[in-house]
């Protein structure tokens, strides 16, 4: 593995072509496909819901399904995830109930996060999925710290941090990589290079030839892998995890992929992205590539996919309906969870609000549209 040469398996030239990475059975391959496919369907639905004005915001991961699921499949249950906002695929793979996803999108009363954050800012404690925030990169130092904590406790658990090409410019990338490397902490840094940070192309993000090479600055191995090749991503991650668990320290993995949709439901790439570039990547669609490979291996059939699709769409529809019909959180929840207990000063603010509503009636929701 290398920081400059790109690992490929799916349709790589030569001997790699067609091999199945060690440890993967047909059922695994099918599960990987299923997860990628499900993500695509979910994203289409999420974007639609936003276009219809039913939810305020959505972040799809069109084109990045292999980069995500390859990694997700390499993780162990006990591992700890420090995800970005563009990563719902792995939560689904780890078995998160779809209702949680849509409850969060609506920020309703049953949302795990109590309607306090924008859509796509999930927290799923039952799968060690840490709470997502918007500031780019902040989770990277958390992952390094959690990995150090596992080391201190003597636990064999690996922390995974996800971020984009843009995220490599953040303060926390620099600090997180450096601390983890000095500590030789069991941490894997996943850089999804989807070529864009909103409208800023990768060559304006960094003058380095690759993002994987940034590992050199920290004395850490850097691996560059074809991010539209789910098997290559899986293998690179698996090896990095083995290293981490063996006490050999952290790894930076760059998955080279492409954002095949807008940055989010608020973005219009036509202002800054050429049609040709988009089309050249469409040809490398990670689902299409994996499907073709599986078909060649006779693991995939059209009938299987059709059945999957039907089931999945039904599942999504049910979850959407349930979430949409759940009311918003109660007003007094606004004051919970700032501190472990509500202090007197905040109780007073709460009482004043409740008193005002009692006297002058409900507060009108005037809305507002998210631009980004």
């Amino acid at each position, binding site marked *: 593995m290398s920081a400059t040469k790109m690992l490929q398996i799916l349709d790589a030239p030569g001997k790699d072509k067609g091999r199945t990475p060690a440890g993967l059975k047909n059922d695994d391959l099918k599960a990987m496909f299923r997860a990628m496919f499900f993500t695509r369907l979910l994203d289409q639905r999420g974007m639609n819901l936003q276009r219809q004005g039913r939810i305020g915001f959505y972040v799809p991961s069109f084109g990045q399904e292999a980069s995500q699921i390859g990694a997700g499949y390499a993780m162990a249950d006990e591992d700890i995830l420090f995800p970005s906002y563009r990563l719902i695929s792995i939560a689904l793979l780890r078995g998160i109930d779809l209702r949680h996803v849509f409850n969060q999108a609506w920020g309703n009363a049953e949302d795990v996060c109590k309607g306090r954050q924008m859509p796509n800012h999930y927290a799923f404690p039952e799968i060690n999925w840490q709470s997502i925030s918007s500031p780019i990169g902040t989770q990277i130092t958390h992952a390094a710290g959690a990995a150090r904590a596992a080391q201190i406790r003597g636990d064999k658990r690996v922390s995974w941090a996800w971020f984009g090409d843009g995220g490599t410019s*953040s303060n926390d990338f620099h600090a997180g990589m450096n601390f983890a490397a000095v500590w030789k902490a069991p941490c894997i840094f996943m850089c999804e290079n989807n070529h864009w*940070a909103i409208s*800023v192309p990768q060559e*304006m*993000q960094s003058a380095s030839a690759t993002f994987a090479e940034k590992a050199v600055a920290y004395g850490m191995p850097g691996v560059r892998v074809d991010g539209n090749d789910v098997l290559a991503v899986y293998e690179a991650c698996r090896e990095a995890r083995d290293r981490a668990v063996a006490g050999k320290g952290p790894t930076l993995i760059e998955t080279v992929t492409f954002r095949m949709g807008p940055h989010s439901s608020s973005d219009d790439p036509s202002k800054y992205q050429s049609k040709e570039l988009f089309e050249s990547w469409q040809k490398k669609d990670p689902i299409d590539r994996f499907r073709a490979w599986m078909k060649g291996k006779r693991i995939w059939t059209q009938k299987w996919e059709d059945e999957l699709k039907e089931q999945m769409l039904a599942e999504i529809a049910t979850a959407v309906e349930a979430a949409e019909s759940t009311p918003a959180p109660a007003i007094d929840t606004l004051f919970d969870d700032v501190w472990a207990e509500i202090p007197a000063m905040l109780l007073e603010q709460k009482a004043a609000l409740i008193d*005002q509503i009692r006297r002058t009636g409900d507060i009108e929701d005037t809305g507002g549209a998210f631009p*980004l």
Partner: protein
Amino acid sequence: MPEMTMLKAINDALRIAMTKDDDVVMLGEDIGKKGGVFGATEGLHAEFGDLRVMDTPLSECGIIGTAIGMALYGLKPVPEIQFQDFIFPGFDQIVSEMAKMRYRSGGHFTCPMVVRTPSGGGIRGGHYHSQSGEAYFAHTPGLRVVMPSTPREAKGLLLASIFNDDPVIFLEPKALYRHSKEEVEEGFFTVDMDKARIARTGKDVTVCSWGAMVSIVMDAAAEAAEKGIDVEVIDMRSMLPWDAETVIESVRKTGRCIAVQEAPRTCSFASEIAATVAEKCVDSLEAPVARVSGFDTPFPYSLEHVYKPDKKRVLNAIDYVANWQ
């Protein structure tokens, strides 16, 4: 005079500044071809090119730090921080460098520059696309902290900020970007940021606010007038340095005062106004100085409309101080 949204007025001010002075340069995330996520820099990259309108890597530390270097060199940088909530990775540069440069060098080095950034709620942005951080900056001597309340104010204050010798944090009330419209003079003009603006004269209650809250306060004042309460509305414009004199003079007349803001309450600029008014107007005050503000919680998503002060909440406070005895 053409009618402009605040976004258009800001875009216009930037274009005028860049045309007037070759040293004015801009840098930030997505401000180039995309024209900014809100469109404030629309068209400027095409007009002024790569060297004067620079898309940058994703680092607010880098944006502010390199802008300081440009200012030290003699340019007039106008960096954009995509959301005020994302200014914190560059906070050290603001507090330790930008604010203290003139003082620490005995006046020999200065960094006049304007950090533009959308601030406040109104777009369903949750914790991280809605905060009003003015108190952090207003507690930092050496900075100017400015926030406009209408399109005309935005244009005049932005031009005044750019052609000013101090570093300015220019907070743009994103709720008004598209939802405010006003006739605005064409061409170059400035608005005096050292003076607060009396947006409405009145004799019963003084209400101080800034940014997007001003229009809400104006609505509340109009409704209060129907009930016979004559509200004087002060648009603060600048939070550091701030024009205590105008406020004090008003409260000496009205005897009652309210400060209205979106930010959390504790250690806020509303607290500063209340403390100062209570001290300076002790002889004329006929009621406690009330603060209407965001709660001491993070900015929420689903309940944004409950968190942000609205007309009812302001009216409630007006009633409270007007009827105090």
